[in-house]
C-alpha cells in the first residue's frame, strides 16, 4: 500500500468508517453528526452510509453518554462525540460513576466498550468554555483510558485500538491537528496499541515528553534548539493512561533531563505524573532541573493575545528546555 497525503480529520473519518463498516454492533452517537457532519466535520457523510447506527442526539451530553453505557452493556460497541472537551463536564457522572466503574463494581460480569471522542484545545480565541484540553481530569479515574495522538497514522490506529478496547476510552482530538496533513499509510483496520509511546526524534541532551498538539509545538521548537546546539529527544506519549513510563525512563536515563509539555494545567497535570514517576524510578540519572511547560493556572481567555500568555508555545518550550539545561 502506498503512502498518501492525508489529514488527521480524514484519518479519524476513515477509522470511524472502518469501525462502523466492519461490525454491525457498532453505534456512533453525538450532536450534529448527521447533515452537519459533526461540529468539526469529522463524521461528514457517515450518517448516509450507516443511517441507523450514526445517531444524531439532542443536546443532552449527560444522558446520551448514559445511553452509550446502556448500549455497551447490552452488546454494542459505542463511539460518542462530545463536541468540545469542555462539555465533558456534562457527561462526567455517566463516565466516572458508571462507565469507569462497571467492569470492576459488577465483579467482571460486563464491561463498557465506549470511545468518547472529543475535540479539545485552544489557540483559537474561543474563550474559557470552548478551549480546554482536560486530559488530566481523567487521570485519577480508574477504569478509564486516555488517548491523545498527535500524528495522522496514530489518529487512525489508536482510534481503532480504542474502539476494540473493552473499556471506556477518552479519545482527545486537538482542533489544531484536524488540518494536519502527513504522508501516511492507513492500512485498513490496522491498530496502534494503546500504552506505547513513540520516540519522534532521538537526542542526547534533554528529554521532551508531550502528547497531542504539544508534540506539534515541540517539533517546531526542535529546529531552534538544534540551532542553539541542543540535541533534544522528543517523545510522544500517544496515550496518557496507560502511561508508557518505561520509554520515558529509558530516555531520561540517557539524557538526564526532563521537560514535559502539555496544554492542560501544570498543577495536577500530565507532566506532574510523568515527572514524579521519573523521580521515583530513575532519580540517580537526573542531572538537570525537571521543568513542566503547560497552561497557567487561570481560565483560558478569549482574547487571542491574552490566550498566548496562558497556553504553552514554541517559545515557552525552548525556555523550559534551557532552564532544564542551565542547572
Amino acid at each position, binding site marked *: 500500500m502506498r503512502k498518501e497525503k492525508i489529514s488527521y480529520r480524514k484519518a479519524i473519518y476513515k477509522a470511524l468508517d472502518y469501525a462502523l463498516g466492519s461490525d454491525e454492533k457498532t453505534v456512533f452517537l453525538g450532536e450534529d453528526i448527521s447533515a452537519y457532519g459533526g461540529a468539526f466535520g469529522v463524521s461528514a457523510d457517515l450518517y448516509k452510509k450507516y443511517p441507523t447506527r450514526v445517531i444524531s442526539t439532542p443536546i443532552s451530553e449527560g*444522558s446520551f453518554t*448514559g445511553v452509550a*453505557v446502556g448500549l455497551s452493556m*447490552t452488546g*454494542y460497541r459505542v463511539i460518542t462525540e462530545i463536541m468540545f472537551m469542555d462539555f465533558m463536564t456534562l457527561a462526567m*457522572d455517566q463516565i466516572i*460513576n458508571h462507565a469507569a466503574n462497571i467492569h470492576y463494581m*459488577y465483579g467482571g460480569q460486563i464491561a463498557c466498550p465506549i470511545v468518547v471522542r472529543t475535540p479539545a484545545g485552544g489557540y483559537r480565541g474561543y474563550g474559557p468554555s470552548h478551549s480546554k484540553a482536560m486530559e488530566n481530569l481523567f487521570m485519577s479515574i480508574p477504569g478509564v483510558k486516555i488517548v491523545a495522538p498527535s500524528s495522522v497514522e496514530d489518529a487512525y490506529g489508536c482510534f481503532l485500538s480504542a474502539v476494540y478496547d*473493552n473499556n471506556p476510552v477518552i479519545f482527545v482530538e486537538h482542533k489544531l491537528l484536524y488540518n494536519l496533513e502527513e504522508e501516511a499509510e492507513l492500512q485498513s483496520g490496522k491498530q496502534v496499541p494503546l500504552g506505547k509511546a513513540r520516540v519522534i526524534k532521538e537526542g542526547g541532551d534533554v528529554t521532551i515528553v508531550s502528547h497531542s498538539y504539544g508534540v506539534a509545538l515541540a517539533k517546531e521548537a526542535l529546529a531552534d534548539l538544534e540551532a542553539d546546539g541542543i540535541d533534544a529527544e522528543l517523545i510522544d506519549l500517544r496515550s496518557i493512561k496507560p502511561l508508557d513510563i518505561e520509554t520515558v525512563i529509558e530516555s531520561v536515563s540517557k539524557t538526564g533531563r526532563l521537560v514535559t509539555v502539555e496544554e492542560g494545567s501544570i498543577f495536577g497535570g500530565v507532566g506532574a505524573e510523568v515527572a514524579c514517576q521519573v523521580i521515583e524510578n530513575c532519580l540517580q540519572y537526573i542531572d538537570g532541573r525537571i521543568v513542566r511547560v503547560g497552561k497557567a493556572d487561570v481560565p483560558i481567555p478569549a482574547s487571542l493575545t491574552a490566550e498566548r500568555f496562558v497556553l504553552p508555545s514554541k517559545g515557552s518550550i525552548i525556555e523550559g528546555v534551557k532552564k532544564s539545561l542551565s542547572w
Partner: protein
Amino acid sequence: MDILEFYKKALTIRFFEEKVDWLFSRGLLGGTTHLCIGQEATAVGVVGALRQDDYIVSTHRGHGHLIAKGADITKIFSELLGKREGYCKGRGGTQHLCVMELNFLGTNGITGGGLPIAAGAALSIKLSGEDRIAVCFFGEGASNQGTFHESLNMASIWNLPILFVCENNMYAMSTRFSDISKFDDVALRAASFGIPSVIIDGMDAGRVFENTKKIAEKIRQGGGPALIEAKTYRFCGHSKSDARLYRTREEEAAWKQKDPLPKMELKLLEVISQGEIEVIKRSIKASVDDAYEVAVAGEDPGVEEALEGAYAQREDLLPQGNI
C-alpha cells in the same frame, strides 16, 4: 397472575429487607442500605408482568426488584456482606448490584443515573430488532434530575421500547415531593415528551400487574415508551439512620393500613386457608434466615479481588465479541 407466586415473592422481599434491617441494627453490615418495605407490590407487580429477557434498571432501593426478577437471595446477602460469592464479588454492594444473567442492569447509587442506561438498553433492543423491552424504575425524586428529562425525550423521539416506572413514595430522602414540585404527579411530566402515562395505586400488586402487562405488551409491539406512576410508601426511613422527622406517625399509620401483604392474603384466603398461609410464612422466613447463614459463612475477598479488575482485558468475552 398467579396470586400465590406473587405473595411468596412479596413475602421473600419483606423478610429479606427485615433481615437486612436487623443486621444493620446489630452492626453486622457495612455501608448503608435503602429498604423497600411497604413497596413490595410495585416490585412483584411490575416484574411479574415482564418476560425473563426484558431488561431492568433499578434504583438505590432495588433489592425488591432484583428478588422479583428471580435472583438468589443467598447471593444478594453475600453481596451485601461484601463476600466473594456475591453477584459482584462484594465490590458493588447494595447500590451497585448487577445480575447480567437475569438481564438486571444494576441497582444504582446515583439518583436518576439509571434512566439513560435504560434508554440505551432500549435503543439496543430496537437496533437489534428484538421484541423485548427495557424497564426503568426510578423515584419521584429522580424526576428532578436532568437525566429524567433527557432520557424521556430521547425515548420519545426514537420511539424506544421502554417502560418508565416511577415509584412515587412521596419523599426524596426527607424532602416531600410537594415541596420540590408544583404538582403532585410525576406522570404530568411525561406528557411534555408525548409519552402516555397512567397513575396507579402502587400498594395493590394486582393493579400494578394488570397495568404493566397491558402497557408492556403495547410497548413490545412497537408502541413506544410509556410511564407508570405507582403511588406507594416506604414504611421505614430513607436509609439506616433516619429518624423520620419530616413526616408524621399518623401519616405512616395511615399508609400501613394499605400494606400490600395483608391485601394479598385476603385474596389468597379465597383459595387457601389461614393455616396454609402461616406455613408459607414460616417456610419463607426460614429460607431467608438460611440464606443469610450460608452467605455469612462465605469467604471474604482476597487482595487480588480488591486490586484487580478495574480494566477489562481484550480477551474478556463480552456480548460484543472480540476483534
